[in-house]
């Protein structure tokens, strides 16, 4: 791998790099060994702490927990995509009031922490006489927050298309709606697909917030089994297992995004975006950390 920061190493640099690699390797091995030793010493590797995984009931519970997480993810993703499409269209509308309202909504929900949104639905709405299940509260929160980010992504994607596309469509006598639905949206979706999927990874991770309002998903499972005195409180093992599941699911989605990106680049319909593509990617990167800000 060559980098802007260093030349291909010469003989002396190679020796130095090897030395550093050995040193770095030793430090790393030291850290890993220390953590491993702590795990071993505190008895995390004893069979008793991992016994729980053999029970059929617990296995079924684990599957149910994964399904619950995926359920929240699936409905949340669909609703967020719809929300995003509607508000992106709103922000690109020709009517000023519509533009302003959608802009306000999108910026508002991007600025409020997702957890507070979920709390508002779960603990706030019952005071108005609207009882919410934890599932609905999580899904609605995910929809509003991720939908707002997706709206910005869609908008960036549509704005990044070459102007010639919409100009040609208008020249053919299409209406605004036709231009949007038939010409701009399909192309923007194609080019934005990897970015959209990255945002869905964020959504999947955010389902974990359901833990804090007693939604029975993976983390609840980890906490419940982890606290069982009967298995000598295997908090560490359950956390590791659940983390592995989350990472696996997210990597699967990320892999899908990379695959689509590669296929898109090879495709004949590929269209070079103006710098909006990079902007949308940045949006998702910051949203990934828990959401960018909003300048209302």
């Amino acid at each position, binding site marked *: 791998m060559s980098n802007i920061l260093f030349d291909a*190493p010469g003989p002396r*640099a190679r020796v130095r790099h090897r030395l550093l690699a050995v040193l770095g390797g030793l430090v790393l091995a030291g850290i890993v060994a220390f953590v491993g030793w702590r795990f071993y010493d505190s008895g995390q590797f004893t069979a008793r702490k991992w016994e729980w995984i053999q029970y059929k009931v617990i296995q079924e519970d684990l599957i149910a927990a994964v399904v619950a997480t995926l359920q929240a993810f699936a409905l949340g993703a669909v609703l967020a995509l719809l929300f995003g499409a509607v508000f992106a269209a709103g922000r690109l509308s020709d009517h000023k009031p519509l533009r302003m309202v959608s802009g306000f909504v999108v910026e508002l929900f991007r600025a409020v922490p997702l957890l507070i949104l979920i*709390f508002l639905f779960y*603990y706030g709405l019952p005071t108005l006489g609207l009882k919410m299940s934890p599932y609905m509260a999580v899904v609605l929160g995910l929809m509003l927050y991720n939908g707002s980010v997706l709206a910005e992504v869609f908008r960036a994607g549509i704005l990044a298309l070459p102007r010639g596309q919409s100009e040609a469509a208008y020249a053919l006598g299409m209406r605004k709606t036709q231009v949007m639905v038939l010409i701009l949206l399909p192309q923007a979706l194609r080019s934005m697909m990897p970015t959209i999927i990255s945002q869905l990874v964020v959504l999947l991770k955010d389902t974990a917030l359901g833990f804090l309002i007693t939604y029975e998903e993976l983390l609840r499972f980890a906490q419940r089994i982890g606290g069982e005195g009967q298995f000598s409180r295997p908090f560490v093992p359950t*956390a590791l297992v659940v983390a592995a599941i989350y990472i696996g699911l997210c990597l699967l989605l990320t892999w899908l995004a990379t695959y689509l990106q590669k296929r898109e680049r090879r495709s004949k319909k590929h269209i070079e975006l103006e710098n909006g593509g990079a902007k949308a990617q940045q949006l998702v990167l910051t949203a990934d*950390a828990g959401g960018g*800000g*909003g300048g209302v």
Partner: protein
Amino acid sequence: MDILIDYWPLFRDGFLTTIELFLLAGVASLVFGVILAMLRVSPVPVFRATGTLYVTVVRNTPLTLVFLFFVFAYPYLEILELSFFTAAVVALTVYTSAFICEVVRSGINTVPLGQAEAARALGLTFGQSLSQIILPQAMRSVVPPLVSTLIALLKNTTIAAGFSVSEAGRIRSVLSDDGENQLVGLAWVALGFIVIVMILTLVQRTLEKRWSVAR
């Protein structure tokens, strides 16, 4: 309005704790994130692999799970006892530094090739050219996404409320114990966050204007 006035000390302390969490975790993850970014662009493959592994693992783990680990599982490893507040700072730092690392790394890639080449031609070593030539320019160009990541960190501090840190996200449960209207209380909390986010956005714009590099 009544709730805000009646419970003013609660709101004030909650948001102060939030800001304290935010500042501590923010500084820590900036430092740690830049170190990670340096690892990720290093000429030594072991360092690069370490950086990549860390970022991949952390970016694909929900923050709530990181919290869960540090609050419930970590004490069983019997390494160093952490208070709930410290555990929250550690969890937020572990999580946010991965994102800071990615932002800084993307900034390093925007520095023109000529800068690094000129630095090398002058005989600067990797460490010198990175710390004196590349990073200062990279940091300037990544101010907007960096502040966005910090805004994200601010919003993420609310999760600490679920793990026994009495910060802004926790105001709700106190109100609920007193049988107050939670909807109104939460709306005030949301408004508080919007205000802080707006201030940070202003800072972002000012810094962007002052520090942007003309290329």
